[in-house]
């Protein structure tokens, strides 16, 4: 096979990122951005087909490997990356027409966007926990300048907090990684394989439990900062609210997932070493706390993107909780929820982005009657919101149903907290979004027609998953869930 889909998947964003950093202001640059993202998605799809067909594989020695767990994330990432690129084209043009951006910054945006995609794909596919760390840090670095793209005081502040908090968080993760290496080295020797997950997972039962417990704490707090687990979440609302909307969409829809993915990989090792529910309990605790904290934060938000950022935190709490419970059903639900959250939340950010552009503000009280301005945006936002709030027949409900029922069965103590969090979140978000969508308004049309298709493609997928999960997808989730043990 001459066409290595895997290499393509990583190289396309890398090369196009570099290319765009030189030529990002050309008139064809937006198209390149979209084409590159689409090509990434296609090759990711090809990779997926290959994995489904031939099973897990390694690449570049043993440094990269693709199994059913991460190939699913790769596809998802590439897909959302593509739709976000489509969405960002008119969005960024509008921003430029409004004078919020200069061509140089547009160039920075496109280049960094592609590089960011690349770092995430590397983080997802690497077999080396050290490289995973490096890629995670690189993902922060590529997005930090995107968050401050508008150069407004608020965006700078947000970017600064993002940089410092995530930097510190990731430093803790590095300490965890070192501890992990420390533990692994005693078994696997000082060869370069001691950080390779595929090797580690084979000897996970022999890893020293004390070290692994400590390592997992560091990794959880560290990567958890990036996931947005409370109380390390503080960077997240700022960065989401102040960055350009496409960045919010990918941060929320993808980066958080990738960070959680990193935790999951580590959890497998910790579980193997500890033979207790230590890791799971920690994750459940963080999950519940995150969910509750975020739910109560929601009620006091005024900025629409900030609110949905908290909603992302809330959902990360749910997902963390789900994975914390462990077992095939809960993990299945966790994966499903991650997918749904990515799709729906990015769709919401697309709609919100256009809405905010139309109304010239992100303050929710000033956004009214979206349905009247543009019915598709209005309905997109409304349906997206209802979907993210867990209303059936959207897929978020399916996963929440499974998580709740599983929790009721195995961790009944958690159920009231889950429900409280979900209920408060429902009340808070709906109260804010409903008047935004409905009612009267007199906003002017935008110079560049918004890209609505991604919103409805995402929501359509979420709807489908609520009613019917394609068998191959569910097999895939199941296999991934089985890998988590």
């Amino acid at each position, binding site marked *: 096979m001459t066409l290595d889909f895997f290499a393509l998947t990583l190289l396309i964003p890398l090369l196009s990122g570099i290319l765009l950093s030189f030529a990002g202001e050309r008139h064809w640059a937006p198209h390149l951005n979209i084409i590159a993202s689409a090509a990434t998605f296609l090759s990711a799809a090809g990779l997926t087909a290959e994995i489904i067909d031939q099973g897990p594989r390694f690449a570049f020695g043993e440094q990269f490997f693709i199994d059913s767990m991460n190939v699913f994330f790769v596809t998802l990432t590439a897909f959302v990356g593509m739709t976000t690129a489509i969405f960002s084209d008119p969005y960024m043009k509008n921003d430029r027409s409004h004078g919020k951006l200069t061509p140089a910054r547009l160039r920075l945006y496109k280049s960094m966007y592609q590089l960011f995609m690349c770092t995430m794909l590397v983080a997802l596919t690497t077999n080396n926990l*050290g490289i995973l*760390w*490096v890629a995670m840090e690189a993902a922060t670095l590529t997005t930090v300048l995107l968050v401050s793209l508008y150069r407004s*005081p608020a965006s700078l502040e*947000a970017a600064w907090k993002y940089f*410092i908090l995530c930097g510190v968080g990731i*430093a803790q993760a590095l*300490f965890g990684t070192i501890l992990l*290496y420390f533990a692994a080295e005693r078994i696997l020797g000082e060869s370069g394989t001691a950080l390779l997950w595929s090797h580690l997972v084979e000897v996970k039962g022999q890893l020293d439990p004390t070290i692994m417990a400590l390592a997992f704490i560091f990794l959880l707090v560290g990567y958890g900062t990036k996931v947005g687990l409370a109380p390390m979440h503080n960077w997240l609302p700022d960065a989401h609210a102040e960055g350009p909307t496409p960045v919010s969409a990918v941060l929320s829809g993808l980066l958080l997932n990738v960070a959680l993915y990193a935790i999951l990989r580590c959890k497998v090792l910790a579980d193997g070493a500890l033979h207790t529910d230590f890791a799971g309990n920690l994750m459940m605790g963080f999950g519940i706390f995150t969910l509750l904290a975020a739910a109560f934060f929601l009620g006091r938000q005024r900025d629409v993107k900030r609110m949905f950022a908290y909603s992302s935190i809330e959902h990360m709490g749910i997902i963390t909780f789900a994975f914390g419970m462990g077992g095939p059903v809960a993990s299945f639900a966790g994966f499903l929820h991650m997918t749904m959250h990515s799709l729906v939340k990015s769709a919401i950010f697309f709609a919100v982005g256009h809405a905010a552009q139309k109304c010239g503000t992100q303050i929710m009280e000033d956004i009214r009657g979206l349905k009247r301005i543009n019915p598709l945006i209005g309905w997109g936002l409304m349906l997206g919101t209802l979907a993210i709030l867990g209303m059936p027949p959207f897929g978020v409900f399916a996963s929440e149903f499974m998580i709740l029922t599983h929790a009721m069965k195995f961790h009944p103590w958690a159920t009231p907290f889950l429900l409280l969090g979900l209920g408060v979140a429902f009340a808070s978000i709906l109260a804010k979004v409903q008047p935004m969508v409905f009612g009267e308004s007199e906003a002017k049309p935008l110079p560049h027609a918004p890209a609505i298709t991604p919103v409805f493609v995402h929501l359509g997928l979420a709807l489908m998953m609520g009613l019917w999960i394609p068998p191959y997808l569910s097999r895939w989730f199941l296999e991934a869930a089985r890998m988590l043990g």
Partner: protein
Amino acid sequence: MSQAVPLYAQLINLLAAVILLLGFAMLAQRRVIQLIDLFALQGFALFLSTLVVAVKTGQHHLFYSAGLTLVLKVILLPWILHRLVRKLHIKGEVEGLINIPTTTLIGLGLVIIAFNVATPISQLSSTITRGTLGIALATVMLAFLMMITRKKAITQVVGFLAMENGLFLAATSATYGMPMVVELGIALDVLVGMVILGVFFFQIRDQFDSLDIHHMEQLKE
């Protein structure tokens, strides 16, 4: 255990202790320029300890690591920082949110915690330099504390870099180094991060006319 500790181990332990001491010194230091110098000194101690480990174990990549440390942490980063301080006209005292004696006392507590946490791990270690893990953790924590207690953006960055030093100490001395790819990656990240920070400082100063982080407390709730 009480038999003769090999010289290189003594050296490493000594250097680790120096690094910890420098960590305290940074915590107690009020002036920005001196802080950067202390950071460079810490980097140098780190370089030396890495070198000792490299010589002892003969692992090639540790030599590279040592070189990287020297270039990056002792020369390049302090130089960038100095330039920034000069260009941005940062002067005077580094005000803390908590006064220095209290901070050092808290730091002492942190060291105790770090040692306690690290003890069970150290006992498992096959390397003789196992004690350094506790010191590395303590260094990380002290740097963390510095970031929490300082008000200027630049001191936070120094704290951040000091934290990186602690991590590096853990990576080299306690485990005899991570795989080369990883170390290179980490170094690259630190470098890129530094560059981005440099860009950032100018942006921040343009916007706020100051690098005092209390200007950046507007995003709430």
